[in-house]
């Protein structure tokens, strides 16, 4: 339990490539425009976001399933703050990775 914060950071680092991989798949499927490099700062949804609401749905669902496959944990990435400019976990790749890893952390503690 004492190791939780570093564990979360480690997972966070692992989730960014996973999100990037899913975005590349969506690029082909949904015809969205991605920058050459996907980093934690890449905007996803909202201000300067690269996804429309349907592409966001596809990303969130695909990420939930990828987390289930990779970590064996079912997380729900739906969030009521999704449409809020200020607190949305879907603002950037980094915010989504952070949000997802915190849920994985919680699920590990409770599960």
């Amino acid at each position, binding site marked *: 339990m004492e190791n939780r914060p570093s564990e979360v950071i480690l997972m966070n680092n692992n989730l960014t490539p996973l999100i990037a991989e899913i975005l590349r798949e969506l690029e082909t499927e949904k015809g969205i425009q991605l920058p050459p490099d996907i980093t934690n700062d890449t905007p996803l949804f909202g201000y300067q976001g690269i996804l429309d609401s*349907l592409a966001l749905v596809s990303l969130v669902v695909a990420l*939930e*399933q990828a987390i*289930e496959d990779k970590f064996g944990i*079912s997380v*729900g990435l739906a969030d009521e703050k999704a449409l809020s400019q200020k607190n949305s976990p879907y603002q950037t790749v980094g915010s989504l990775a952070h949000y997802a890893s915190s849920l994985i952390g919680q699920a590990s503690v409770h599960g």
Partner: protein
Amino acid sequence: MDSPVTLITGTRKGVGKYLAERYVRLGHRVIGCSRNPADWNLDGYCHHTADIADEDAAKTIFATIRKQHGRLDHLINNAGIAAMNHSLLTPLSTVHKVLDTNVVGTFLFSREAAKLMKANSYGRIVNLTTIAVPLKLEGEAIYVASKAAVLSLTQVLARELAEFGITVNAVGPVPIDTDLIRGVPKEKIDRLLARQAIPRLGTFEDVANIIDFYLKRESDFVTGQNLYLGGV
């Protein structure tokens, strides 16, 4: 084509059990669930004991389906409970129970099913409404309100999920001889039947007939619809 994967809620008894047996017979791989353990089993059928309004339990069911079958073709949101009582005699705990099972459960299972169906750009979701909604049946305020919500869910989800090749429709049965109406006095049922164009109780087959139609591949242009039985 592989045999279709069909999830049906509320399969321990009544219409749900009939539908589970029927779709197993038609070659589907059927997954069912109910709050209490089922006292029956069949080859080609897998049962989960779960409260359909419990998000964790639902997620476990869908994770299992994904692992075992890799996809989901059909969801039949059959599970439902009724509270037949004057509104002034209905405790709030009953209100929450009815809304949880009928509305929250239907929403939760539809949401999780759509996530799985989306991967194949194909899916059929069928909800259960009731003729008690258009008949504005007195003595069932919260049940009717919950099923009116299911009707609205059907119509809105149909629009939201069309993009993913998923149709969402509903069937609204007349009273059927199941536990749901067992506590209702006969004269009340008779009065209700008199308001139908065809005044008889419904059968499991009547309901299945409509669901068969919604599940057909050829029904891909039919969505957001609700069909009342008995000519209501």
